């Protein structure tokens, strides 16, 4: 190695920590950038919850943080819209797409399949830096004249297509589009690498049916990303043409401020089609990695093989496929032909089948397990809970006849936060607790982790469960205040309650961030295999080295779920309750993934 050492320390630092091409370092970069963005998104939601829970009341913290976006401690209505838009954008894309996939695909793909690194370290590095630049531009857009984009995270035209429509439609919207275009490039570069690495660089013996479910979930996520993100890029480009060059892809028969515009022949509904062709798969881009991560954790911490390994893979494939043909369920009220509505209802309800299979398999894996409730395990079980309770309301929204009644109300906000927001977050946090020893070589504090979990699950349900009742009563989403409508007066206490829970949730996350930063620097040193796991990442040393394994890459002989496996005498085969993938099969022993 010495021949490759750089003479200058500075240069070493630059290539090791900044422009690193090592997947483990890139994973850390994604994690930390993602968490910073997530913290900003979380703070935004806490601030606008203050407005919703206590409309018109003055808060010094709002004055202090929002500056000119507030007056006498009350946030301005148009800035409320900007905050909601940016909150949604940041949470969905920056935290739960780049942050989640970027961190765990990068960390785990090479380590779990037995590869030295990604297929292309260079493209991988580009992927991170595109993400970084995109994050910076998105944050800069908060400070520009007119404020950040305000048309909702779905940026429907005409609000997004006419720069003069609302304050956020100007420069803020332009920067949103630029940032997202760069973001899409980052996501595509990442996905290319993930897919090719998984398909081409597995170590000897690592057949597709010996892959941990994490890897399967990252693979399917990346494929879904490669198929759907380019369509969003196409949609965004046509939007840019309409905004900046005067074409009429999405605009027709429109006037603004009494003045007729010359646009003719376009349709905003076209944008909705293109947007939701990405938008729905995006939900699964968030969800699938969380499902993969928690499958792994649930099996390891129950000390039981995952139940229905092949069924888990098949249902993820089915979900990935179906996710591309359901987008119309977001558009039931656009004047869609009722027959087409019925088709989309059908495909949407079909997704319930693979989802139910997954839930069943989680529960049967837990059943009679020798469960160890580490914080990672708590959050994984939390995900099983949110996946069920959010999935059930999905059945209602997927049915066109029912959806029409609650479309664009808080029922929807409650639904998607639970099924996508909470499940995504729980999966990501579970992954951080579980693989923290692998990422930082130190352990997180368990007690703080437990406190963090209980505060989070209680406040999360406290926030989002009551929203369903608001929605059923007709409270619309994206409203600055609900105190102007006598109709909703009797719901006021619910709004206040939700806000108190939001504040609790915020402080709960501070505990986590403290634990994260403190433990990364000062936590107790981690053992090599703290959870007694079977997969390959636990065969690498605690200290990161370039290339992952000092000698040869280990060969794999079995699937990763041989927990508590007994021999004919009823004893553990290896004397321990787990058999790493690197242990050869005994005579006559069957590989678990094969049946």
């Amino acid at each position: 190695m010495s021949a490759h050492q750089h003479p200058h320390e500075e240069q070493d630092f630059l290539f090791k920590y900044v422009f690193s091409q090592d997947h483990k370092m890139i994973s850390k970069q994604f994690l930390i950038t993602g968490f910073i963005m997530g913290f900003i998104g979380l703070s935004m939601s806490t601030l606008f919850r203050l407005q919703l829970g206590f409309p018109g009341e003055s808060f010094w913290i709002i004055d202090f943080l929002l500056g000119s976006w507030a007056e006498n401690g009350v946030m301005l209505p148009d800035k409320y819209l900007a905050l909601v838009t940016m909150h949604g954008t940041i949470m969905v894309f920056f935290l739960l797409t780049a942050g989640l996939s970027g961190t765990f695909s990068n960390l785990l793909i090479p380590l779990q399949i037995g590869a030295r690194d990604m297929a292309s370290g260079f493209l991988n590095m580009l992927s991170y830096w595109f993400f970084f630049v995109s994050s910076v531009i998105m944050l800069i857009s908060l400070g520009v004249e007119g404020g950040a984009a305000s048309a909702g995270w779905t940026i429907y035209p005409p609000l997004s297509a006419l720069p003069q429509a609302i304050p956020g439609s100007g420069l803020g919207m332009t920067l949103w589009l630029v940032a997202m275009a760069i973001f899409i490039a980052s996501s595509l570069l990442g996905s290319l690498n993930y897919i090719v690495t998984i398909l081409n660089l597995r170590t000897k013996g690592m057949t597709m049916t010996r892959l941990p479910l994490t890897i399967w979930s990252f693979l399917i996520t990346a494929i879904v990303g490669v198929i759907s993100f380019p369509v969003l890029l196409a949609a965004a480009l046509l939007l840019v043409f309409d905004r900046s060059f005067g074409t009429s892809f999405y605009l027709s028969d429109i006037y603004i401020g009494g003045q007729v515009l010359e646009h003719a022949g376009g349709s905003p509904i076209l944008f909705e089609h293109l947007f939701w062709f990405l938008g729905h798969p995006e939900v699964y881009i968030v969800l699938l990695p969380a499902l993969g991560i928690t499958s792994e954790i649930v099996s390891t911490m129950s000390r039981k093989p995952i139940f229905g390994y092949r069924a888990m893979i098949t249902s993820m494939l089915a979900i990935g496929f179906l996710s591309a043909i359901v987008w119309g369920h977001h558009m039931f009220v656009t004047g869609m032909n009722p027959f087409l509505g019925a088709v989309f209802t059908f495909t949407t309800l079909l997704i319930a089948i693979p989802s139910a299979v997954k839930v069943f398999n989680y529960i049967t894996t837990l059943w009679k397990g020798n469960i160890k409730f580490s914080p990672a395990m708590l959050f994984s079980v939390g995900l099983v809970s949110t996946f069920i309770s959010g999935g059930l309301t999905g059945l209602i929204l997927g049915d066109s006849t029912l959806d029409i009644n609650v479309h664009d109300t808080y029922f929807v906000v409650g639904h998607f936060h639970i099924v996508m927001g909470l499940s995504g977050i729980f999966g990501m946090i579970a992954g951080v607790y579980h693989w923290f020893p692998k990422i930082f070589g130190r352990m997180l504090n368990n007690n703080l982790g437990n406190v963090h979990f209980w505060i989070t699950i209680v406040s999360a349900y406290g926030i989002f469960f009551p929203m369903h009742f608001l929605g059923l009563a007709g409270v619309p989403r994206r409203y600055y205040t609900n105190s102007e409508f006598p109709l909703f007066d009797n719901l006021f206490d619910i709004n206040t309650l939700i806000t108190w829970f939001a504040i609790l949730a915020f402080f709960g996350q501070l505990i986590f961030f403290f634990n994260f930063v403190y433990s990364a620097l000062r936590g107790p040193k981690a053992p090599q295999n703290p959870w007694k796991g079977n997969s390959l990442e636990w065969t690498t040393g605690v200290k990161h080295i370039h290339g992952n394994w000092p000698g040869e890459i280990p060969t794999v002989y079995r699937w990763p779920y041989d927990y508590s496996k007994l021999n004919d005498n009823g004893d553990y085969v290896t004397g321990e309750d787990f058999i790493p993938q690197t242990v050869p099969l005994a005579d006559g022993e069957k590989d678990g993934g094969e049946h």
Partner: protein
Amino acid sequence: MTTISLDNLDNIKYKTEIRQKTAKPLLWIGLMSIVMFFAGLTSALIVSKSNSIWIKLEVPSMFFVSTILILFSSLTYQLSLSFTKNNQLKFATITTILTFVLGISFTVTQFYAWQQLYHSGVFWAGEQSNPSGSYFYALTALHLLHLFAGLISLLVVVTKSILKKYSPTTILGIQLSLTYWHFLTALWVYLFFFLKFIA
């Protein structure tokens, strides 16, 4: 590959091996995303077409010339790969340069075609424009944008073959660039027929 130990990680041989294994799949999956990009745009056109003010347009005659040129360029590029494989490197260089020239000519005819469109009153944007015209310009310009990337890769291949960097066994670079170029040709043919018959 498992036999290579850590000491060899920065070793050129190891890096080439990984490249050999992964460069083509990387390209193919990249192409898949470009396919989805144009699938999105062309389905958008189909949705827009149902609008009552949609005007059906004739394909400008220059687009026929473009089609012939790009088909020829694919042929010459393919020839250049065969020449390299047969170690007829001089012919290989000539055919690569020819491909590049054809690529440039394709670009020129695109600009002529846009001029034809413009003179026949088909505008990209503004008061007198119709979405059908805007799609014509947008689709072909976005294809051309992808073609520029192909031209850059061609330039690299031209330079390297003038510098005699290729041999019958070191052809990965040509193969990658060639695959991309064929893809551009196929994409153009698709767009051409799509614009002619569907738009």
